[in-house]
């Protein structure tokens, strides 16, 4: 099973690129376009979806009924966003997302996945010992809260709709969105309570 000394990954990547360019199968413009495409996909998009759902009950209902359309309403659609489902957090249930077989993610609203989400550690362990993994990541859950782990190897792409923290009644939509991180949208972190933070 020992790996032979292999060419550095930078050189292997250039080899594929140059071979395809030399054969005229792709152009430099194709590479530029696809290399920059992920810049439009970011967790700030998902955060804006959450903030809208917190401030507009009709939008929240549309998000829970048909998240694909509700995200598209705000302009968030595209590859790996063909069928999005929003998972509502409640005081009784916590949701967390994983792709055990590769690294599927709702790109338009979560962005390309971070390294930890793609790691064998997360993919292997979070389905089997979610509370321990979440606790190691800084999220302690009460025994009373049920944990649902959502495996996303098929074509549904998920996002977590967290609970709106208390003490944010006067927040603008923009300020609310700023509370929601990528880790919150995947379900491995809770929103820091702004009320507790200021004390």
């Amino acid at each position, binding site marked *: *099973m020992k*790996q032979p000394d292999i060419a550095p*990954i930078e050189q292997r990547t250039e*080899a594929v690129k140059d071979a395809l360019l030399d054969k005229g199968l792709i152009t430099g413009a194709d590479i530029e376009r696809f290399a920059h495409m992920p810049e439009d996909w970011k967790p700030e998009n998902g955060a804006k979806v959450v903030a809208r759902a917190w401030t507009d009950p009709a939008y929240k209902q549309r998000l829970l009924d048909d998240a694909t359309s509700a995200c598209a309403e705000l302009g968030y659609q595209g590859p790996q966003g063909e069928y999005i489902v929003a998972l509502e957090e409640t005081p009784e249930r916590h949701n967390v997302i994983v792709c*055990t077989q590769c690294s599927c993610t709702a790109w338009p609203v979560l962005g390309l996945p971070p390294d930890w989400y793609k790691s*064998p550690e997360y993919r292997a362990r979070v389905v089997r010992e979610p509370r321990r993994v979440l606790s*190691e990541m800084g999220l302690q859950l009460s025994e009373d809260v049920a*944990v649902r782990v*959502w495996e996303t190897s098929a074509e*549904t792409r998920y996002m977590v709709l967290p609970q709106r923290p208390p003490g944010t009644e006067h927040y603008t939509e923009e300020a609310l969105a700023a509370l929601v991180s990528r880790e919150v949208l995947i379900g491995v972190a809770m929103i820091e309570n702004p009320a507790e933070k200021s004390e």
Partner: protein
Amino acid sequence: MDGIHDLGGMQGFGEVSVEADEPIFHEPWQATAFALMFASQVVIRSHNVDEYRHSIERMNPAHYLQADYYERVLTGTASLLVEKGHLSAADLAARAGGPFPLSRPVAPSPMVDLAPQLEPRFNVGDRVRVLPIAPAGHVRAPRFCRGHLGTVLHRAPKFSFPDAAAHDGPRRKEHTYHVEFAAQDLWPGEGASNDSVVVDLWDSYLEPANR
């Protein structure tokens, strides 16, 4: 295939390490690898997404675990470009200035015989069992849920059946279902009694629980 990629429930891994404010790409080559993956499917139309996912599953397991995510992306893409006749392995190694490991070949009989299910057979609340299948090719029913009983929470739209799309089988679209499995059933005695795992499964992978 019961490969290294099917990691769910595997033991022996350590803590998850989170990097604060992680960039989209850490290195320029990663953006290039991502672009090559996309261009191969969208511009060259060399292969489809299911063939692509399977090409990564076919990596040497030791290489798979050591490789960064974008190295897996590049290895799978390059393997298919060679297998489909667009590029040659010797040319890639020459250009790279050293060995360029590619994925292992597709298994001789990669699919198991599953009856196509063009009409949805299940409804929310139904109890279903995942068939105890173990095809040598691409399959999206994770090992940890095969043979287990679960409850349908939701019926999703129809999507291309991945096993067939990856292996030139008869193409078809089937509904998928969000099926909830009790953690205590998947791993008896380990998890909390109120924990569960929901897996998104194609109709063909399932049978009624009362059968």
